[in-house]
């Protein structure tokens, strides 16, 4: 673990000064895929999580060739510093971060506070996409140690081999609702995976969208028995909120063995015969 300022976070000030530097590419990834067009950080490119950060045929993360093409088209090569930011306190920025780490990109960072902080500070926005010179990108072999699949989660539940962290809202955890208010219901049953701890993703963040301090985060997770002494598996509904918690545990707190279960509740809550705990 480290108690120093993580190198994976950059401030809005840093981005204002370096967004258009050679070797730096700022990328906006939002839940609301139209947000980029409403105005984005000058020089930033926008990625659509529904079409560019997933496999659009089968349910999976972005295929390696599609990722290489996406990065190359964004003017990113293997040495580029990628700075991600987005709405909802960086939900899908963290989703992109997680996938970029799976494919081995060295220098990926998140802008602390995300889009909310940038806009609240009244900083400049652009409506036009930047002119980009394409580059060539070669991804590394996917690091599956960052990702949990269903059999591993089932094994962890049966053998109590990992700390399961449910990062959804308390109402989703108890099964009172099947999806966040206003969003489509995407599961057949409500509740949570047996043995999971409820630690909503929002507890990682301050009101301005920045991440809480190392000490605050460490205390919060320790109070729930999540200390990094055993493997951790984070999940939510579709894997994006849990990628933010994965980022916190892996890169801000420095836990060794943390996985994002991106199948999450839309997989578990639709499985025939799967054990469900309520409330």
């Amino acid at each position, binding site marked *: 673990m480290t108690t120093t300022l993580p190198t994976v976070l950059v401030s809005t000030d840093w981005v204002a000064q370096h967004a258009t530097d050679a070797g730096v590419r700022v990328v906006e990834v939002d839940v609301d895929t139209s947000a980029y067009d409403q*105005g984005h950080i000058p020089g930033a490119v926008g990625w659509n999580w529904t079409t560019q950060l997933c496999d659009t045929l089968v349910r999976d993360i972005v295929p390696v060739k599609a990722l290489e093409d996406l990065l190359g088209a964004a003017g990113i090569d293997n040495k580029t510093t990628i700075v991600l930011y987005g*709405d909802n306190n960086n939900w899908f920025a963290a989703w992109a971060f997680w996938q970029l780490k799976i494919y081995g990109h060295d220098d990926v960072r998140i802008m602390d506070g995300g889009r909310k902080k940038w806009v609240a500070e*009244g900083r400049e*926005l*652009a*409506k036009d996409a930047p002119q980009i010179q394409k580059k060539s990108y070669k991804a590394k072999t996917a690091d599956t140690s960052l990702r949990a699949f269903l059999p591993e989660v089932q094994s962890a539940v049966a053998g109590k081999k990992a700390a399961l962290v449910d990062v959804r*809202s308390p109402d989703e955890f108890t099964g009172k609702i099947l999806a966040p208010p206003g969003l489509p219901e995407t599961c057949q049953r409500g509740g949570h995976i047996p043995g999971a701890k409820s630690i909503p993703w929002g507890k990682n963040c301050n009101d301005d969208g920045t991440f809480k301090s190392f000490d605050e985060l460490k205390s919060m997770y320790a109070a729930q028995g999540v200390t990094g002494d055993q493997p951790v598996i984070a999940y939510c509904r579709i894997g994006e909120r849990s990628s933010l918690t994965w980022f916190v545990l892996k890169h801000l707190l420095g836990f060794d063995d943390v996985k994002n279960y991106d199948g999450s509740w839309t997989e578990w809550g639709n499985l025939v015969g799967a054990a469900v705990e309520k409330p």
Partner: protein
Amino acid sequence: MFCVFRGFCVDRRPFMKPEDHSRRQVELAGWPVTIETYKLGEVYHCTIANVDPGARFARADGATKEEAESRAIEKATKYLAQTRRFPTA
């Protein structure tokens, strides 16, 4: 510098600063939500997010703040009405 896009006068200056930014919590259809609005160029942008977990699920633009917010609220109210509550006991 200006052109008409989807009925709005769109400012094509390369960089603009958001103005008249506001953020408040209200209750819609029985759910607490956050309404965030700002003006960029000549267009007001409004987004509505649920308070917990904080997901943006409705947005709209308008020539005035009131217009953008009323359009977004109309959409949000419709979506929220479809969220069911289940017994947990």
